[in-house]
């Protein structure tokens, strides 16, 4: 393949699209600033969109050495990239919202249920113990309970 005839905006657009999708889960999710709203990823998707638009125009130009193949390839890349973007929007804005309402959860001002559960070494730890075991020699003022989905 002649490197000068390579439709580089199209392929670069595809690479940036994939990077925009994957970087959220491997990089941007680590920082609250880029996790709570995925603006960094949306910026990458916009850049990918501009590149893909250029690539599609190039692919549909009349001076391509293989006009039919060029149109088919750039169309497939364009549709696939759009699909990746749609997946991202779905996973973050729709999938992330599929949570139960938890109307019966303790509310501000209410006492929370007691519990005793094993820690990472298998030792039973109670809420009373968590609230009384000193932190740096002082009695704790409180406990922050963090419920999470799990490692899997």
């Amino acid at each position, binding site marked *: 393949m002649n490197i000068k005839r390579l439709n580089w905006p199209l392929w670069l657009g595809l690479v940036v699209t994939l990077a925009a999708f994957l970087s959220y889960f491997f990089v941007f*999710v*680590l920082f*609250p600033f880029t*996790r*709570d709203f*995925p603006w960094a990823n949306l910026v990458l998707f916009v850049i990918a969109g501009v590149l893909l638009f250029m690539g599609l125009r190039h692919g549909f130009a009349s001076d391509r050495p293989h006009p039919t193949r060029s149109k088919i390839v750039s169309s497939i890349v364009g549709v696939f990239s759009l699909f990746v973007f749609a997946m991202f929007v779905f996973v*973050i*804005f729709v999938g*992330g*919202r599929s*949570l*139960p309402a*938890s*109307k*019966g*959860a*303790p*509310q*501000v*001002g*209410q*006492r*929370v*249920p*007691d*519990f005793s*559960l*094993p*820690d*990472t*070494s*298998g030792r039973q*730890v109670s*809420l009373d113990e*968590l*609230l009384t*075991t000193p*932190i*740096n020699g*002082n*009695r*704790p*003022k*409180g*406990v*922050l*309970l*963090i*419920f*999470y*989905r*799990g*490692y*899997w």
Partner: protein
Amino acid sequence: MRSIERSLNKFSEAGIRPVAISVDTSEDSRNLAQSQGYTFPILSDRNAEVIQRYDLAHKGAGIHGEDIARPAEFLIDSTKTAVWINLTENYWIRARPEQVLEVSKLLK
């Protein structure tokens, strides 16, 4: 939980002990703590009993269709009263340490 670990000194200064709870086994939690460098307590609620008592069960949402916890944070004072809660509507959005540390100033 990464940001909680990064702010752990500030939590200790404020007299707040972070505690994480999930349905993972103690062994899985130990591996998680080791790989991520978490030093706060991580408790294992294998059958989601405590999670159900707090009405936080996300039915069938585990990889094998088991019940798991929906993400939630509760700041509890020394009388076991909730002084601040965060029931996120989107699991990509979690409580930030600064929010909790701000509220913790109200604790006696």
